[in-house]
């Protein structure tokens, strides 16, 4: 559960490693001693982690920075170009389009994906008998593989002809048919609706866990003091789950800034670049035309997104530290 963190009773004793209680001779390092104290077995156990993370995490991160300063085509040796890739990206008119679209997606996703799961979680938390059924239903779409979800929505629900599922239902009221994904105005909201459907279940479960961990006695005490429903929500619930709310807000921004799958599979960025997002632009730079030509620009844009998100998270965590109760 959210609050299931370790509250350790005192500093645990290190086992078999470096900190066995033996008076250490200061300033002298003896390899034999190190091996005898288990230094070698620690290295052996760490080997899978060190190899895998070096190869597939730390090295690619370094390589990303290097790539952003080079041009490369996978055949000739790469050449250094300074900040040219960044200039190319910033001067690309598509960059501003992608930035605006991503911000629009994030805003819409926040509009749908923040209050709706919260309201749902509050209602679910007050149900005693059916809590399990409620949460299982809410979580079900999360389990569907995203590709299946997108295809189901694209070829069935959003089908532009009159036999699309939504258009069929609207047809009963003599409306439509609408080309949900084919018009620049509705394409992005259509993506956000599917994405919220696919992801809101996780948010509901996390809010629910937070709500359930609020001490019931606080509510009773507030009731005894004569607080009505809204005062209880405002003075008990909200302060108690503020930490979770803030973190979820942050995670949602981070998640939506990286949206790729929905625009790629639904619309490939169209119509008229209305759903071109930053990560889709990265993909187009890197793999869109002939592979390799735009690796430098792709790396530069990836790096900008990553740095922005890292700074955003750090600033957000710092700013909200004093508000958070957990």
């Amino acid at each position, binding site marked *: 559960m959210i609050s299931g963190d370790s509250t350790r009773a005192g500093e645990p004793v290190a086992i078999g490693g*470096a900190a066995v209680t033996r008076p250490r001779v200061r300033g002298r390092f003896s390899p034999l001693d190190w091996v005898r104290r288990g230094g070698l077995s620690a290295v052996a156990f760490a080997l899978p982690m060190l190899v895998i993370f070096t190869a597939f995490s730390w090295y690619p991160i370094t390589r990303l920075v290097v790539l952003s300063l080079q041009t490369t085509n996978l055949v000739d040796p790469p050449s250094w170009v300074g900040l040219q890739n960044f200039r190319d990206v910033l001067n690309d008119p598509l960059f501003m389009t992608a930035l605006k679209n991503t911000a629009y997606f994030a805003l819409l996703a926040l509009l749908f994906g923040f209050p709706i799961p919260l309201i749902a979680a509050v209602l679910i938390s007050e149900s005693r008998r059916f809590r399990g059924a409620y949460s*299982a239903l809410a*979580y079900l779409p999360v389990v569907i593989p995203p*590709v299946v979800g997108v295809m189901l929505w694209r070829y069935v629900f959003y089908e532009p002809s009159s036999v699309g599922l939504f258009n069929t239902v609207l047809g009963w009221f003599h409306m439509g048919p609408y080309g949900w994904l084919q018009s620049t105005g509705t394409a992005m909201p259509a993506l956000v609706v599917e994405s919220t459907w696919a992801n809101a279940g996780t948010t509901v479960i996390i809010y629910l866990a937070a709500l359930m961990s609020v001490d019931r006695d606080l509510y009773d005490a507030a009731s005894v003091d004569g607080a009505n429903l809204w005062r209880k929500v405002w003075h008990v619930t909200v302060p108690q789950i503020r930490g979770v709310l803030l973190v979820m807000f942050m995670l949602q921004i981070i998640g939506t800034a990286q949206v790729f799958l929905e625009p790629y*599979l639904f619309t490939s960025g169209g119509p008229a670049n209305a759903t071109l997002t930053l990560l889709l632009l990265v993909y187009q730079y890197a793999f869109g035309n002939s592979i390799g030509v735009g690796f430098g620009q792709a*790396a530069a844009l990836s790096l900008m997104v990553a740095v922005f998100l890292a700074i955003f998270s750090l600033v957000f965590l710092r700013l909200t530290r004093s508000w958070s109760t957990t």
Partner: protein
Amino acid sequence: MSSEEKTGGLLSHNEWARRDLRWLFGSAQALLFVLLILIGLGPVVWLAKGAITPTIDTLRNPLALFPHGVAWSNLTEAWSQVHVGRYFWNTVVLAFGSWLCQIVVATTGAFVLSVLRPAWGKFIYWLLLGTLFVPAIVLVVPLYIEIVHPPLIRHSFVESYWAIWLPAGASAFNVVLMKRFFDNLPRELFEAAKIDGAGPVRLFFSIVLPLSKPILGVVSIFAILAEWKNFLWPFLVLTNSPDRQPLSVRLPAIQPQTQIGVLLASMLIASLVPLIGFLVFQRTFLRGTGLGGALKG
């Protein structure tokens, strides 16, 4: 979380007794239930229905219930003619390899960081925490170049499953989650084992792993599910070998030349493993352990 919630929650007993409030909350809950059935269960049920409905019926009226009978043939056709059976097997192999790599890295790594605690462990831990700030998707380009032209090794890993299995292991989240669990294991047990002469290997296999079944289960479920859902990375590194691609990569590819009934059957088959997994391990999913752990930053 007490199972006995006889005392009031947000609404106290008195408030539940008030007719207007009870009516308001009760009807909101009922409305939510209907919506959840419609939004949560509806698409899944519709997918299952569409999978066994003749294509012509789905095209004419997607909401009619079997006007011209049931077409079980969709499923068999998808499995054998569209080769969904093979792609299903590919997905299983990919998920198994990624799971194995993640489990090996996470357990041994967390064992070093939490139990053995060498002097350099702190430094590695900080490096791990640092990578949590780097979203996986921004590393796609450098990772792709690395797979095509690996440094030191003169052998391209493109079109090989190793290109998917090995990078899957680099999940800092798994290591951190596992380390936190190990941190809470009773230290006295380790001390006692050590006095009895158990070395690190014995400690790892006979004490730490058997005690960690709950967290191993959680990490396993989420590792398998994540690989089952994975699209972009297998799509990039297995581009030229359709026979070796997993379901999530093949489904969009087979869409143009597959009639909708068979396509829906393929999509249903692709969702079966996650759906059944969810039904069986519901509590693991709904407790939010895997996700909640990340929140306590």
